[in-house]
């Protein structure tokens, strides 16, 4: 039997400053009818480009340079636009990463939903509309009869993503391309979307290409997984086989990240807290974002603050740094209250508390060279100049594992993502701090790079006795690096305690929800979880 989609030796080029650069380098991909294939890889692997190419589409500035894309026996490379247009939306559909941007703000959801089937002549407007309501119901959207009559900005992110999946299914396509559909969502929302997508795809018998960088997600969704790296193919195998027995070193390294464990601690040093937050309430305008938050960080230890977007974890960091004054409560550093705003703090206190941001890209001034980035705090806090400063810059570069002579004169634009984050760490270290806030420092990075950063932070903590406040939404990171955990929800601390305690039941219900929502590598995890939750609801109803 011929495959539904057969891509072979596909080459795609991007227009760069000096001609065309190959970004997909001769990749093949086959999808059988009804099969779900996961495409996985880090940023720049070419997975989205490959996914879009399955529709015979490349983004502006790209071109197909060679190879073939056959859909149901028809060649799409070089096919006339009219033929491609007939296929798109009707037989191959697309679900974008950001549904908020991919829905037209000027039209209601249902108008956009019906556009495909009506324009392709598959059904009448009335049929399409009835069908839309059925799909909304199947996607478990609230108020399926009326939600379609809302505008995109009136619907939440998770709902919008499901509405987009419904829209993709409007013409009962043979193949759906999901391009990181849950990446922008919180974990608890992600579960709803994942399960809705998976059930819908199964019920309709559509084939799908599921693009993601998250192994645990792909394990739930795909029958078969293909790993890409920098536009080339690494390996491909049925999901269970690949999880159990990855063949290539690169694939194994993707798995390895989750196994990172910090070096063992000396329990004797866990004595006094270096930072205490006492009953802090803070916010912008009248609305408090933080309500009565209290916790403390012990010297030489790592406290992880976890929560979803809007939980107030970043606001906590801003309060500690003195960027936001609390309306009630106070922050104590070594039992001295920290003034707010931070400008009023003595320079030595400013020096001892440092912060590393999530996006190294925006945390580094693009016009400051590595030398200036590290040199400025040395000069500002420690008064180092000339040769002493230069020597210290080189020492710090060596400390973060960047070859000094090679990197010292570079601009941030000439560094990779991981190198930029290392530079930010060096900048924080230059102040010779005691306490560092790490605000989602690994979440913008690929997994292997992220692991390198975690290892570096762990080594620095061991060598210098640093204390960390680690803000993250990623429980895998928490599990690997934290000594203590603080769980936040809607501006409140819902639970806190030593890590081992936090990860063993009984949990606070929200912690339970959060923990159980984190995808695991086991391909049966999602089914089992949904089963459990259904059972729990059943029990609740019975009681």
């Amino acid at each position: 039997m011929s495959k539904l989609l057969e891509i072979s030796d596909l080459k795609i080029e991007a227009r760069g400053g000096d001609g065309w650069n190959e970004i997909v380098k001769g990749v093949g991909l086959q999808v059988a009818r009804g099969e779900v294939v996961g495409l996985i890889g880090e940023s720049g692997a070419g997975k989205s480009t490959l996914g879009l190419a399955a529709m015979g589409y490349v983004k502006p500035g790209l071109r197909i340079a060679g190879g073939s894309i056959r859909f149901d026996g028809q060649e799409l490379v070089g096919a006339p636009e009219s033929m491609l247009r007939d296929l798109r939306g009707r037989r191959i559909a697309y679900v974008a990463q950001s549904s908020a941007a991919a829905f037209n703000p000027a039209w209601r959801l249902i108008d956009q939903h019906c556009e495909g089937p009506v324009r392709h002549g598959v059904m009448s407007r009335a049929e399409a509309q009835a069908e839309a309501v059925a799909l909304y119901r199947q996607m478990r959207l609230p108020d399926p009869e009326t939600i379609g009559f809302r505008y995109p900005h009136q619907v939440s992110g998770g709902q919008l993503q499901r509405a987009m999946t419904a829209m993709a299914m409007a013409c009962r396509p043979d193949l759906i391309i999901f391009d990181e559909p849950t990446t922008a969502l919180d974990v608890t929302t992600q579960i709803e979307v994942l399960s809705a997508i998976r059930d819908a795809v199964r019920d309709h018998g559509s084939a799908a290409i599921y693009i993601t960088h998250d192994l645990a997600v792909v394990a739930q969704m795909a029958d078969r997984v293909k790993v890409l790296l920098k536009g080339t193919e690494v390996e491909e195998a049925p999901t269970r086989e690949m999880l159990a027995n990855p063949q290539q070193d690169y694939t194994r390294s993707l798995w390895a990240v989750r196994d990172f464990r910090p070096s063992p601690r000396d329990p004797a040093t866990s004595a006094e807290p270096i930072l205490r937050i006492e009953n802090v309430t803070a916010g912008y305008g009248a609305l408090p974002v933080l309500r009565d938050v209290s916790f403390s960080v012990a010297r030489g230890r790592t406290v992880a603050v976890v929560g979803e977007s809007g939980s107030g974890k970043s606001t906590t960091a801003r309060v500690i740094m003195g960027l936001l004054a609390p309306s009630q409560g106070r922050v104590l550093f070594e039992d001295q209250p920290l003034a707010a705003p931070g400008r009023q703090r003595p320079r030595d206190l400013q020096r001892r508390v440092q912060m590393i941001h999530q996006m190294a890209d925006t945390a580094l001034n693009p016009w400051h060279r590595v030398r200036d980035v590290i040199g400025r705090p040395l000069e500002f806090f420690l008064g180092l100049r000339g040769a002493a400063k230069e020597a210290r810059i080189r020492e710090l570069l060596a400390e973060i594992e960047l070859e000094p002579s090679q990197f010292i004169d570079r601009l941030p634009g000439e560094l990779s993502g991981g190198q930029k984050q290392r530079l930010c760490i060096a900048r924080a270290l230059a102040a010779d701090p005691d306490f560092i806030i790490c605000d989602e420092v690994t979440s913008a990075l690929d997994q292997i790079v992220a692991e390198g950063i975690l290892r570096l932070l762990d080594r620095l903590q061991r060598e210098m006795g640093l204390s960390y406040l680690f803000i993250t939404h990623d429980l895998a990171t928490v599990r690997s690096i934290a000594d203590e955990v603080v769980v936040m929800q809607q501006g409140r601390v819902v639970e806190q305690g030593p890590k081992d305690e936090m990860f063993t039941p009984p949990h606070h219900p929200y912690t339970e929800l959060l923990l159980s929502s984190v995808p695991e590598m086991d391909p049966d995890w999602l089914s089992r979880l949904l089963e459990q939750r259904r059972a729990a609801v059943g029990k609740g109803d019975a009681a």
Partner: protein
Amino acid sequence: MTRYLVLLRHAPLMAKIGVLLIALYAVTAIFAPWLAPYPEAAVVGPKYQPWAAPHWLGTDALGRDVLSRLIYGARNTVGIALVTTVLAFLLGTTTGLLAATVGGWFDTLASRVVDVLMAIPSLIFALLILTITGTSVVALVLVIAVLDSTRVFRLSRAVAQGILTMDYIEVARMRGEGLGWIVRREVLPNAAAPLIAEFGLRFCFVFLFISALSFLGLGLQPPTADWGSMVRDSAKLISFANFSSWNAATFGLAPLLPAGAIALLTLAVNMVVDWVLHVSSGLKD
């Protein structure tokens, strides 16, 4: 700067022509007294001479050498436009960057003042003020500089606000850096590219604006050689243009010479600005 010189080697033809033309104008303006065959305002021959030696572009209604006046015009018109633009820029960027960085009442006040100034068309405002001050060069320069600085204010404020949301600003603030350091070392380098391009555009605007006022008889006053007034003085001759003979043709084309000189310089600056904008937007991603 050196980076732009390297880039210029790979620049499109239009940009190269633009740079070359600007250089030519600059040389003419700087070396005007040595280049011009006759003095700026002296009557050196009969009226309305055709284009022939020794008056290669003829003489005007008073018998002054047109070529010499065009060369001096480069110095006067371009010079004054440049001074005005620099003033407008100093005023606009300083207040704009400060408004964005300091915020608070200063930002509110400056923004409201600019809103009101911009609610009146510049030409109309300039005419109103010139009614009061009379037509002096100082008044002209100050009025236009203040009016034009409103646009520079808006741009530099918007650019700075974009930069100020960046985390590296937060890092500097958390370190306890002062206002001067943040503006000079963090904001300014990042605002440079759009501001350079804006400088070119503002110069074009100011230059056309001053020429327009001169053309209306309200800008630079005689006997200063100035392209706008030269167009005004020779405007009526256009209706006598006919191409039957060299003399008649050159006679009628007189107003087009200074007007063309204005147009060519503006075009050259615009071509360079287009390229700078293109390069700086390309360098970002």
